[in-house]
């Protein structure tokens, strides 16, 4: 009888795990796979950002981004060059960002304004957590270290007919912008389907949804990102038009000379 009880318990445990299909995978493992899936040395993309305010009015901007990962060579983590293409009055405006592996070191930023024909270095913390009036923080856009959060697999859930892993990520640092994030990840493709951001007081602040997920250069990429910011009644839509991964990218691109030229070629 006793053995039978143990057997029953064991079976139930097995069945539950089988049901979840995750007997062997943890939340951290999933996040690791997401990281690895999107891990590239360089990325070039052209995208359109549409900002929508609470009255439904919009601002559109088109920009080209070059990102290169340095993996700590010379203390540098990544270098990014952003050049605005649209609207016409800001065409050629550029932003160059260097981030460092040493977390204590402030990012270096240079801005070029074609109307003034001058490059200026902007030092210090960005006062605004959000990237240029969007609903994405610099953190949301950049690569966050996997161990900055504790990840817990909550189970599986089906969204839009796709069965996703549901992972809760709680920041290790209690002063983080968010109290937690819940992410839905498409298995095998290892891309985000949806992310919920909860603010410090535990209230749902933003929801990111992705769509148009296509494989480019062997990497699964959502071509449309939609962030709905409830706390600000503001929305941001990013549509990627063109993207290239791991193409050859000269270090010279990430210099003030190119920034000032306003184009890479």
């Amino acid at each position, binding site marked *: 009888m006793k053995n039978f009880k143990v057997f029953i318990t064991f079976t139930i445990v097995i069945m539950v795990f089988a049901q979840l299909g995750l007997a062997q995978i943890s939340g951290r493992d999933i996040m690791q796979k997401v990281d690895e899936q999107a891990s590239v040395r360089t990325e070039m993309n052209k995208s359109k950002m549409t900002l929508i305010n609470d009255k439904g009015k919009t601002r559109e901007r088109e920009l080209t981004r070059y990102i290169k990962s340095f993996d700590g060579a010379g203390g540098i983590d990544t270098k990014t060059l952003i050049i605005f293409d649209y609207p016409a009055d800001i065409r050629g405006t550029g932003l160059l960002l260097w981030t460092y592996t040493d977390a204590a070191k402030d990012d270096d930023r240079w801005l070029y*304004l074609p109307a003034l024909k001058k490059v200026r270095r902007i030092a210090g913390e960005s006062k605004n957590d959000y990237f*240029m009036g969007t609903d994405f923080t610099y953190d949301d856009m950049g690569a966050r270290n996997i161990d900055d959060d504790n990840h817990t697999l909550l189970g599986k859930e089906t969204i839009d007919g796709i069965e996703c892993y549901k992972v809760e990520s709680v920041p290790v640092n209690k002063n983080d912008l968010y109290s937690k994030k819940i992410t839905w990840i498409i298995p095998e493709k290892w891309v985000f389907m949806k992310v919920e951001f909860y603010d410090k007081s535990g209230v749902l602040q933003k929801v990111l949804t992705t769509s148009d997920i296509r494989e480019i250069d062997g990497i699964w990429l959502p071509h449309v990102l939609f962030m709905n910011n409830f706390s600000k009644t503001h929305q941001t839509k990013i549509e990627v038009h063109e993207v290239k991964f791991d193409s050859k990218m000269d270090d010279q691109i990430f210099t003030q000379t190119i920034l000032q030229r306003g184009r890479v070629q």
Partner: protein
Amino acid sequence: MSFGKQDHVKTWIDFVMQYPRIVIGFSILFTLLMGWNIPKITIDSDIISMLPEDQEIIVSINEMEEIFGGSELVIMSLKSDDIFSEATLRKIRALSEEIEGLPIVDRVLSITNMFKISGIEGGFEVRDLIEKIPENEAERAVLRQVVMDDELIYGNIVSKDFQRTSVIAILSVSGGSDTDQIAYKIFHDLKRKYTGPEEINVAGLPITRKSITLTMQKDMKALFPFGISLMIFLLIISFRSWTGAFLPFVVVIMSIINTLGLMALLGLKFSFISILIPVMLIAIANDYSIHIISHYFEEYHASADKQKNMIIHRTVEYLQTPVFLAGITTVIGFLSLQSHVLPPARQLGLLASFGVALALLLSVTFVPAALQLLDVPMILKSDDKSQRMSRFLNRWGSFFIKHRIRFLSVCLIFVLLIASGIPRIVVDTNPMHYYRKSSEIRVNNDIIDKYFGGSTQLSIKAEGDIKDPIVLRKMEQLCDYLEQEPTVTRTISIVDYIKKMNKAFNGDSSQYYVLPDTREAVAQYLLLFSISGDEDDLSQVVDYDYRQAQILARVNETSSVSLNRLLKDTRQYVKTEFGEATFPAVTGFVAVIGELVDLVVRGQMYSLILSIVLVSLVCMVLFRSVVAGLLSIVPLSVAIITVFGLMGYSGIELNVATAMLSSIMIGVGVDYTIHFLYRFRYEVQAGRPAQEAVIRTLITSGKGIIYNALSVIVGFTVLLVSGFLPIYFFGFLIVFSISTCLIGALTIMPALLVMIKPKFIFKKS
């Protein structure tokens, strides 16, 4: 002359006499049904609702709030010997963080969350204004210098003496008494929590509105019972009988209940002006029943057979004309307020006229019905007292008849002298002045005005391509113009932010604090701002697609007349310099106060003229004589001129409440003249010579007139305990003006009548 056909009167009073229980039952039932609605009345403490909704200014204010966000903010001001001391800064940081976490708060402006821009080699640097709380005097000196260099902070968030700083909470929800209630409680709890040794003051529109609501509730709790007890006391003294006191009291209560019930049915909101309604009804609405009851008592004592029904018939027949007239002129006075542009005045006129008309109706239906059912008790005033009064009135009348020429000349000179005060009348529409200078709400707002550049704003809308330097230069020119106006402390517009970016981009050098020359540069600076500034700051000065912008001019002046001038000058400047295409609207709270000035003056004029014309028309019809109409308004005109002259010389302002004074005073005050003329004509037609007729009138109707006026005066004195200054002064002035009307009727009328012997009275019939 009589009103209504005689046989109609008969049938109606016969019906009342025949079915007294039905009349009483119906009156009570109807009152209960109306009273059932009273709990539905909502209190409205919003200052904006003083203005008519279709007023252009309200439309434009709503539009501006729609585009640039509301001005619902609460300001907490901290005072300390040095606000940059470690302890105080820590407190400000903790307070700001706590406010930031409140669900009703959208964002917080405080020195602990501001940023500073400074020039560095090859660029500029954006950092928190206070990265690290300064620990010694040297560090504090550096911080002070940084603050002094930032004009968006110095004199705005930090007072120029560094003893005060404000923490501004911009609320995420707007309007609604629930929000006001919540905000009021939260911020006062915060104040209690963080006070000491720092002093904390709380101000802001939600706080002001809640304070107004609280004062209104306090006023109602004080004024209503006080007024009622005063009335009962007065009635008991004069009638020395419970019946005599009880019936007018019931009439007044029923009139108040029905009036408030009607208010609820019409969906009207209870504003601070509405406090006047029950008080007015207490003071005025008992007159008619008092007349009926006292005449009934007199007749009853005089009659031999003590036939109640017959006596009631006689009483109603005798009194219907003068009582009806007194009522109708009062109703006309109140209805004249319909010509007022301000909704609260119109509302009060409508409701008070309904209440008075109803009291009149009850006095000739409910009161006779009740009298028939009740025992006839009562000890009337002792004959002794009455005779002393008669002797006094006799001497009084003889004096004014004897010295009529001298007296009327003195009157004329007096009127001319006091009239010279009229141009000095100051109009005041600032809702802050509802309160005494020493009141908490005034003290708090005065601090904001004095140390943080004022809490009142003029808001100007700009339209066009806002990124275009041509448009921006116009805005800059208008800002410069506004800043040289003595009442304006500072202006805030998109121009400031663009200049600030230009300065930052050029090594934070002051010589670059100017507008750039090209549209591209403006657009690129705006993009720069989204990188280095807080974009939310921009939403109150420019709309999302850069087609509309707002210029805010902060004002620390509270005089409505100055604000009216600022408004008119600004509109004129905009019109002549730019045309209205660039700046289509000059609005904001300053504009509300400014426009109210004109509306109060206009409303005062219109309602005054209308009520004078209507009241004199009623007298013309009544006595079938133009002269009678003109005569009847002589004592009124003297009273009006005296009251306005007094206002001018004593500095009592013409405001939303006192602007209603003249119509009400005319409607109530003319009664005395009408009663006097009516009796005088009766005495003359009975064959008495003028002088004797005057004396007879004084000792008969004169007594009633004096008693009537005194009860109104006493009724209005309760307004002197109101927490609202306009109501307080309204009370003072109405007491003064009714007294003037009374004295006018009892002095000027006798002297005038004997002097001119008007034909409509002395004609041979």
